[in-house]
């Protein structure tokens, strides 16, 4: 405490011993330039892309508003940078530093908004360019309204396939992971089998597995199995593919549990299998839940491949509308549906993990 005060007092008496405030004038100028360029960009787009429409009006108003905010923030940054340089010259180095710091933050805020606005403008441009061709093809409200009910109903098939396949994947994936890690000489053939399966199934594209199952199983003429409906072929195919991914996820989880946990469990008298069951797996599974979710989201989306074996899912239904209306807006409905089911799952898992962590640390964050 005392020594710090001494240093500052000494420093104020001899500012030349203080290292100078950082120079931020250049950064502030760049931010200002970017903001001004954006205003120009909005003006050009508003003039040529959508003149005279309500959309164009909103576009111009919001575009100019955000661009103006960018420029305003950049200007204040510029002002601070100039003042900071003046303070530096007058010897108030510490004040100059503090002001330079604020100027820097302002400049970055301005640049951040600029980047965001630029991306939004680029997307809008893509949709509205060429006489709004993209908008007319993918966002035709009449078709969206007309197809929505049927597409949503068909989406039930996607959800059914995903949920059943996910349950099978968890079980089969865990069996594969344990098989791949069996210890000792006796475990070798099973290990080899599991490794081969995982390697092959991760390599073959899901759509090809779907073909093989959907068209191969009926040909094989196996009683019961060959008489499955296309929906169940889809479940089988996705289970076969995704179990291989999930097996590797489980394996990573198991391997990251420290060997001392197994030592402790074995020293109490638990067998290898009991140690897995009571000590290793509960910790390993908890550790890989976020990775599992990522894999499951991919699986859910791959349910849209099942139309190739003739299942009437949401995407197939949407394609039906698309081809009879020469417009792809019904497909947009499918995309929106997948977004709607995916985001809550992500948040739910975040919440679950956070709650678990809080419990183990005793209520404190």
């Amino acid at each position, binding site marked *: 405490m005392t020594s710090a005060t001494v240093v500052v007092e000494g420093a104020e008496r001899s500012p030349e011993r203080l290292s100078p405030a950082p120079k931020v004038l250049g950064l502030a100028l760049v931010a200002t330039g970017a903001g001004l360029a954006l205003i120009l960009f909005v003006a050009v787009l508003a003039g040529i892309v959508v003149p005279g429409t309500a959309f164009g009006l909103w576009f111009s108003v919001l575009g100019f508003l955000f661009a103006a905010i960018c420029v305003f923030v950049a200007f204040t940054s510029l002002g601070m940078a100039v003042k900071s340089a003046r303070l530096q010259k007058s010897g108030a180095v510490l004040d100059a530093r503090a002001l330079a710091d604020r100027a820097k933050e302002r400049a970055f805020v301005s640049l951040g908004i600029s980047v965001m606005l630029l991306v939004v403008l680029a997307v809008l441009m893509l949709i509205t360019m060429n006489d709004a061709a993209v908008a007319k093809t993918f966002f035709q409200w009449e078709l969206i309204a007309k197809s929505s009910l049927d597409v949503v109903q068909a989406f039930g098939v996607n959800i059914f396939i995903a949920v059943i396949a996910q349950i099978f994947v968890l079980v089969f994936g865990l069996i594969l992971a344990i098989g791949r890690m069996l210890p000792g000489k006796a475990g070798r053939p099973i290990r080899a089998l599991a490794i081969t399966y995982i390697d092959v199934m991760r390599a073959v594209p899901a759509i090809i597995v779907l073909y093989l199952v959907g068209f191969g199983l009926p040909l094989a003429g196996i009683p019961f199995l060959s008489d499955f409906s296309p929906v169940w072929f889809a479940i089988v195919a996705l289970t076969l593919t995704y179990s291989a991914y999930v097996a590797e996820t489980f394996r990573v989880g198991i391997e990251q549990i420290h060997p001392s946990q197994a*030592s402790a469990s074995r020293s109490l*008298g638990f067998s290898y299998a009991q140690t897995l069951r*009571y000590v290793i797996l509960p910790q390993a599974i908890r550790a890989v839940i976020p990775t599992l979710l990522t894999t499951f989201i991919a699986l859910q989306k791959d349910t849209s491949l099942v139309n190739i074996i003739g299942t009437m899912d949401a995407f197939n239904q949407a394609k039906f509308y698309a081809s009879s209306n020469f417009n792809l807006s019904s497909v947009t409905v499918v995309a929106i549906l997948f977004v709607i089911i995916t985001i809550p799952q992500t948040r739910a898992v975040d919440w679950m993990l956070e709650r678990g962590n809080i419990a*183990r640390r005793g209520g404190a964050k």
Partner: protein
Amino acid sequence: MSFIELSGVQKSYGATQVLQSIDFAVEKHEVICLIGASGSGKSTMLRCINALETIDGGQILLDGDVISGPGVDVNALRRRVGMVFQSFNLFPHMTVLENLMLGQRKLLSRGKAEAEARSMELLKRVNMDHRAGYYPDQLSGGQQQRIAIIRAIAMDPEVLLLDEITSALDPELVAEVLNIVRDLAGDGMTMLLATHEMTFAAEVSDTVVFLEQGRILEQGPPEQIFRDPKEARTREFLRQVIEAGRL
């Protein structure tokens, strides 16, 4: 015949011979302290008795039964031989009470009420009954180690192996753990401790064993080993310990 007997026990990791022909005996109710530099084979010796390591030569007997070599039911053996580790190794996904009950429920087939009663009795004994519902992460190292000790005791082992159980603890937490060991010694628990706590070893043990490069160089009652060591290497080791302020 002694309670535990090691004869000609050898163990190597690759080309490194960690234990070279250990001959050693433990009587029932005896407390044995293994001392020696890091890498002298103290921990390996304990891990061999509990079959966490398989030995490469020699034989280990527990109460007249051969417990080394192929065909031994290691799970049954380990229920008789408890072990506590340097790094506590509590199960982090379970509460203190669940840690204590798991082995009793699944391995000793105790009922829920019985296992819980036994756990709470042990928790009271180490003044931790108010922490039954806590998770290991919420406890200090000393508290975790106390739980680890009674987790082993809850299985009613015939012998307890303690592998440098205070080495990972802050100095002010060592005493609370050693008090429990002192207590157990008073109850007549047969114990083998690998330890760097020389003062404690001198106080609590019946026999002190000095290991050097995988051999037992010298063993005897603590007064003799600490006051009048016969081997030059033992004197050298103790001199270094005293220099470090540990004795």
